[in-house]
């Protein structure tokens, strides 16, 4: 999810909270074990603590919902979820249909060209992936774009990404165990460089 990545992004914020809470907990445990000062905590401390936890729950829930809704919004605006995406009038730069099978991906672009190992996109493009499978449950993960989806056979699942700005090859992998060939189920997101753009 594009708005979740980055050093100051939502992912990092959540990890920082995790580290702070963990550090606090470990410090308390070590203090309880090794500090010479003994402290009989008043019961009110626990209520205070639960209050802090509730704030944490509220913050995690609202941030997560906010990020996820922002991510879902383009899908809803384009009617992807309700009526299906219309490539003629839609605002996504590219639509790639992805067939996941045991064991690999087939990427079908708008010109109906099929690639077994690469989805070719332009830097910074907004790409809609239409995922489907006919055999078993598969996963679809692009680490560089921060998106994971799980989809069962027979259903169609739509996810979108903003392609990385830097030209190069980025990993696409299956994240759901789908049989013995699971570890080979990999492909590449190829972000075309300037020379490729010039050729095309």
């Amino acid at each position, binding site marked *: 999810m594009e708005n*979740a990545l980055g050093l100051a992004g939502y992912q990092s914020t959540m990890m920082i909270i995790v580290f702070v809470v963990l550090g606090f*907990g470990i410090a*308390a445990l070590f203090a309880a074990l090794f500090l010479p000062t003994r402290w009989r905590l008043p019961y009110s401390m626990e209520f205070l603590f639960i209050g802090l936890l509730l704030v944490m729950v509220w913050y995690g829930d609202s941030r997560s919902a906010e990020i996820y809704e922002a991510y879902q919004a383009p899908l809803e605006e384009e009617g992807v979820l309700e009526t299906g995406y219309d490539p003629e009038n839609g605002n996504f730069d590219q639509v790639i249909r992805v067939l996941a099978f045991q064991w690999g991906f087939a990427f079908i672009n708008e010109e109906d060209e099929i690639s077994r190992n690469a989805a070719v996109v332009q830097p910074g493009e907004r790409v809609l992936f239409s995922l489907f499978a006919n055999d078993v449950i598969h996963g679809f*993960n692009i*680490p560089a774009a921060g998106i994971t989806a799980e989809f069962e056979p*027979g259903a169609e699942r739509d996810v979108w990404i903003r392609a990385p700005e830097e030209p190069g090859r980025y990993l696409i992998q299956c994240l759901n165990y*789908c049989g013995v060939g699971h*570890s080979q189920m990999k492909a590449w997101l190829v972000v075309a460089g300037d020379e490729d753009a010039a050729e095309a």
Partner: protein
Amino acid sequence: MASVHDAERMGGKPHWEAADIIGKMTLSTLLFSHDYRHIAIKGMLTSIVMLGLGGLMALLFRTELAAPDIQFFDARPYMSLMTLHGMFMVFGFIIPFVVSIMYYMIPKILGTEQLLWARGAQWSWWLLIIAAVLLVISRPDFTWTFYPPMALRVGGELIWMGYIAIVLVAISEFIAGVVLFKNGWEGARRIGWKKLPLMGWGALSEGLLLAGSTPMLGLVGIIMYTDWAGITALYDPSRGGDVITFMYMFWFYGHPAVYLPLMPAVAALYTLLPRFLGRPIWSYWSAVTAFVLLTVLGFIVYPHHFQPAENVSGWLQRTTQILTLAIFIPSTLHVFNWIATLWSDKIPDSARRAIPFKFMVASIFFLMVGGVTAYVNAQIATDSDFVHNTYFVPAHFHAMFVGFMANMAMAGFYYLYPYFTGRMFNQALANTHFWFWQIGIFAKVTLMYYLGFNYFPRWVVDYLDLPQWSMPQMMLTGAAYLIGLGFIVFVINTMISSTRGAPVSGDPWAIDGEDATAAAPVPAE
């Protein structure tokens, strides 16, 4: 309130006399005796065997994972090892181990003097052993979650035995749940709800979780078998079935399943902490509240296991997220309570020396390490962003299963050891075991988190040679070997000390400054 904080009721007094129970056991008492100690010892010993087998499998496939590409195992044997590792560790080792510790402690602590419906506990054990044998023969390679239709299309001709084994595990756990609930209930009836020791509350929540969730697992096992045999097609979309049904049914068991080893471990911690510190738990009612909340939440948060699937959306997704985050509250109540108990007064030197106490402190540590990251796992956006099915998830549950529950199982075992052998284990060897484990587990969990952070996928035999992947994998294998070494030290110590350890008289865990010889078992009321 004084009676609630009565140290005796909280496990503060020794409950057994050290005796060589295990040495006097014959094959027939081992197999068929209905004495609670015999059943518990049998459960613990078979669990240790399962731990050894499951650990051996882990070491084998970890050796394969140490470097990219395929060196020792092909994908199919690798997946068989991994599936059996998961099933042995969860169904064979950790759940029966902590449940056996409960079987041992309940009769004295709840004052029932015997395990009620011990016949049930006996049946539960036998069914589990049959299930383990069937599992090994069937050699499943579909991971412990056996998602159809994948699971229906892999595996050899004997895979039906695996499904039968799953049904047997379900029946076995169901019976164990009924036994624990019955004992907890009887304890509450005799002692009164307001004075019920926390072990009793643990037995009640554990019993409810086991008995409430396992029927669904049995049903799933039966349907998987009939689907595989071609009789039905409930889970196979190519024949008109629906995998979503499977997801909801399986995870209705699957989430309570991870609490099954948690509850007895928590209950054991609540029992042993006052025992070693010589003072009651900081807050009794906070612990009871946490038990109740955790039991209730355990049944309703299961959709978070398949959250990035499309069918979990809208209000269901949001509610699941909020409830999952809310699990923070009961778990923190537990941890807070333990730390407050530790902090409230001086920790006796006898406790600092005691091996079970060390394992308990390590358990609290790892419960925090495994618990806080749930903050990331629980959120929809981070889950569909980078956590789901990467190594972040195994890191989270290994910190819990190994760091918290297995450590707690060891604490319980070392605590009970002098009571059923009449001898003390070797302190130096036990310390070696402790440090090998803690260093190994910490390294393992940290490296798994790191790999998950770098999107290392679960369930792979082979991986790309990326620097952020291969290096931690190599170190992870080292950490696994360290844990294995610790286990060998533990087994040697257990075996040698049972005949050559220093004989124990009086209270083996007497607190400094108290008269160790005067401490006799609490008479029954």
